[in-house]
C-alpha cells in the first residue's frame, strides 16, 4: 500500500514513529497525482516548490521536537477559491486567471500554523456555482470511480483528490451542497459545519449568508481532525460565531443507542434512485437494531428550499461578484469608458453559469422585485429555520440521502440548469438553516458508484452529528477505493 492511501490519523502515527516523513507523504501523493491527473484533473495548481519546503520544514521541526498537532506534515488539497498568498487563486474563472492573492485566508493561515502541507489548489465549478465541476473555465474534473462521470460539485476537485489519493485530506466550501454532494459522488466524507464556525475571511465570496468552509476526508475521524484545525472565532469575519466550538470527541464512539433519528419524508420518493433509497433503509435498520430510535418526520418547507435558495444565492452572488470589474485584479478587456471596460471585462471573463446567476440575482434585487423575491425568500428561510428547530425537539438528527442519484455522466445536465439545480435538493436545507450536515459513504450501487448518507443536526449540534456519522461509518464498513487509486502499486 502506498503512503498516499493512509488516513490522516495513520499518517500521523507513521510520522511520529519515524516510519515515514512528511516529504515521503508528499512524494507519495504527488506520485499518485502524476498517474491520475491526466485523466481526472483534480488540481488547477500543484505547488511543487512550496509544498516541498513546507514538508521539509515539518520534518525538521518534528525531529527537533516541535509537534504542531494532528495535521503536522500532512499533505492537503485546497479548493481554488481560498486565497493563498503567493499561490495562484482562480476560482476556475477566466476573470481571475493568474491572480496571486496578497494574503492568506484565515483557514489557510490556521492550516499553515498547524504544520499542514498544501499540495495545491483544486478544481471547482466557476466561483463554486454548480454541482458537477463541469463549469470550470479550465476543464472539468472527472470521477475517480468512473471517468465518464462527474465528481459532483462544486468542490469536485478536492473530493476526487481525496478519493484517489492525490491528497490525504482536503477542504471545500459549501453554499448549497458543494462539499457534501461531491463527497457523496466520490465516496468520501464531506462535512459542512454550522454557519459561522469556520471563518470565511479570504474565501472568495459566493453567497455570504450561506457560504461555509468544511473538510473532505477518507473517514469521519479525519474530517473531525481537519475541522478542529480551522474552527473557531475570527475577528476578521464579522459573521463568525463568537462562542466556543462544540466539544465533539467525548461522545464520538458512543454508538447509536438512544439517538433519535428523524427520517425526512420530503427527501424521498420520485427522482430518488432505488439503490440510493435501499442503501439508506438498510443503514437505518442497522442503526435501529443497535438501539437508535427511528422517527418518520415531515418538514413541509423543505419542498420550497430549492426555490428559496435560487432566489437568495444568486442575489448575494450578484452583489459579491460586482468586485470583478477589471480594476484591481484579474482580467481587463479595454473599453472607451470605464463602464464599457467593466461590461466587456465581465462579459468576457465570466462563464455562462456565473453570468446566468448574476443576471438572476440582479433581476431579483432590482427595483420593484426585491421584496417579492429576496425578501420573501428570506422570510421563508426564517420559517424553515423554525421548522427545523421545532423538529429537533423530537429528534436528535435528521437523515436523508446526500444526493438523489449516484454520479451522472459528463454533459448529462449541462444544457438544463434546473435539472442540475435539483441535484442539490437534499443538501440545500442545511445551508439555508445554517445547520451542520455531513455525508458518509454507505455503499456502492450495481455500477460500482458510491452512495452517500446525509446526517443533519441542529445548529451547533456537531457532537451528535459526528457521533451518528461515526456509527453509520462503522456499520457501513465502506473500505472500497476507486480502481484508479490502485494504478501505481
Amino acid at each position: 500500500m502506498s503512503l498516499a492511501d493512509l488516513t490522516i490519523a495513520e499518517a500521523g502515527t507513521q510520522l511520529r514513529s519515524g516510519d515515514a516523513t512528511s516529504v515521503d507523504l508528499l512524494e507519495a501523493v504527488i506520485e499518485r497525482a502524476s498517474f491520475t491527473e491526466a485523466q481526472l484533473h483534480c488540481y488547477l495548481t500543484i505547488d511543487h516548490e512550496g509544498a516541498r519546503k513546507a514538508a521539509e520544514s515539518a520534518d525538521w521541526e518534528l525531529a527537533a521536537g516541535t509537534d504542531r498537532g494532528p495535521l503536522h506534515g500532512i499533505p492537503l488539497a485546497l479548493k481554488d477559491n481560498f486565497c493563498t498568498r503567493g499561490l495562484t487563486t482562480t476560482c476556475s474563472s477566466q476573470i481571475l486567471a493568474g491572480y496571486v492573492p496578497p494574503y492568506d485566508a484565515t483557514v489557510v493561515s490556521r492550516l499553515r500554523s498547524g504544520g499542514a502541507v498544501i499540495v495545491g489548489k483544486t478544481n471547482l465549478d466557476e466561483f463554486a456555482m454548480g454541482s458537477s465541476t463541469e463549469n470550470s473555465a479550465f476543464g472539468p474534473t472527472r470521477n475517480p470511480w468512473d471517468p465518464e462521470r462527474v465528481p459532483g460539485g462544486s468542490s469536485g476537485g478536492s473530493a476526487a483528490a481525496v478519493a484517489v489519493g492525490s491528497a490525504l485530506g482536503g477542504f471545500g466550501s459549501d453554499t448549497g451542497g458543494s462539499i457534501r454532494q461531491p463527497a457523496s459522488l466520490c465516496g468520501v466524507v464531506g462535512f459542512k459545519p454550522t454557519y459561522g464556525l469556520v471563518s470565511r475571511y479570504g474565501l472568495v465570496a459566493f453567497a455570504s449568508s450561506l457560504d461555509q468552509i468544511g473538510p473532505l476526508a477518507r473517514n469521519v475521524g479525519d474530517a473531525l481532525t481537519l475541522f478542529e484545525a480551522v474552527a473557531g472565532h475570527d475577528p476578521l469575519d464579522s459573521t463568525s460565531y463568537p462562542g466556543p466550538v462544540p466539544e465533539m470527541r467525548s461522545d464520538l464512539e458512543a454508538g447509536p443507542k438512544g439517538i433519535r433519528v428523524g427520517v425526512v419524508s420530503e427527501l424521498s420518493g420520485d427522482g430518488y434512485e432505488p439503490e440510493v433509497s435501499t442503501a439508506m433503509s438498510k443503514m437505518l435498520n442497522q442503526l435501529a437494531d443497535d438501539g437508535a430510535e427511528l422517527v418518520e418526520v415531515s418538514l413541509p418547507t423543505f419542498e420550497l428550499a430549492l426555490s428559496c435558495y435560487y432566489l437568495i444565492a444568486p442575489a448575494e452572488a450578484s452583489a459579491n461578484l460586482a468586485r470583478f470589474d477589471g480594476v484591481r485584479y484579474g482580467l481587463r478587456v479595454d473599453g472607451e469608458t470605464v463602464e464599457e471596460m467593466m461590461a466587456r471585462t465581465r462579459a468576457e471573463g465570466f462563464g455562462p453559469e456565473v453570468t446566468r446567476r448574476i443576471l438572476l440575482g440582479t433581476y431579483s434585487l432590482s427595483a420593484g422585485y426585491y421584496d417579492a423575491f429576496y425578501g420573501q425568500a428570506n422570510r421563508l428561510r426564517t420559517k424553515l429555520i423554525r421548522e427545523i428547530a421545532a423538529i429537533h425537539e423530537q429528534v436528535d438528527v435528521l437523515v436523508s440521502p446526500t444526493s438523489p442519484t449516484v454520479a451522472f455522466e459528463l454533459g448529462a445536465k449541462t444544457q438544463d440548469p434546473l435539472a442540475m439545480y435539483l441535484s442539490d435538493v437534499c443538501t440545500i436545507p442545511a445551508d439555508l438553516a445554517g445547520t451542520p450536515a455531513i455525508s458518509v459513504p454507505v455503499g456502492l450501487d450495481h455500477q460500482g458508484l458510491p452512495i452517500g448518507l446525509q446526517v443533519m443536526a441542529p445548529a451547533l449540534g456537531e457532537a451528535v452529528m459526528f457521533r451518528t456519522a461515526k456509527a453509520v461509518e462503522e456499520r457501513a464498513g465502506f473500505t472500497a477505493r476507486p480502481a484508479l487509486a490502485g494504478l501505481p502499486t
Partner: protein
Amino acid sequence: MPIEIDITHVARLARLALTPDELDRYRSQLALILDHAARVQAINTTGLAPTAHPLGLTNVFRPDEVRPPLDVDEVLSQAPSARDGYFEVPPALEGV
C-alpha cells in the same frame, strides 16, 4: 403565465456587455428558473422577519486599532493597470 424580464436593462445593471443572442438565451432560461422559484410567493409569511444570519448574530464591533495594511506593491502587482501607487482606469466621464 411566463415572467416578463427586461433582460437588456438587467444586463446593463449587472455591467455585462452581452450579445443579442446571449440576451435571448438568458431571458428564456431566467424565465424558467424564476417560474420555478416564484412558488415561494404563494406562501404566507406574515409575521416572519427575514433571516439575516442563521444564528441570529446582529451587530459586531471591533476595537478601532491601527493595523498594518496589505503591502501596496504586492496589491498593485495584481492590477491590470496601475500608476504612481494608484489603480488606473479609462475615463469615467465623457469628454475628460
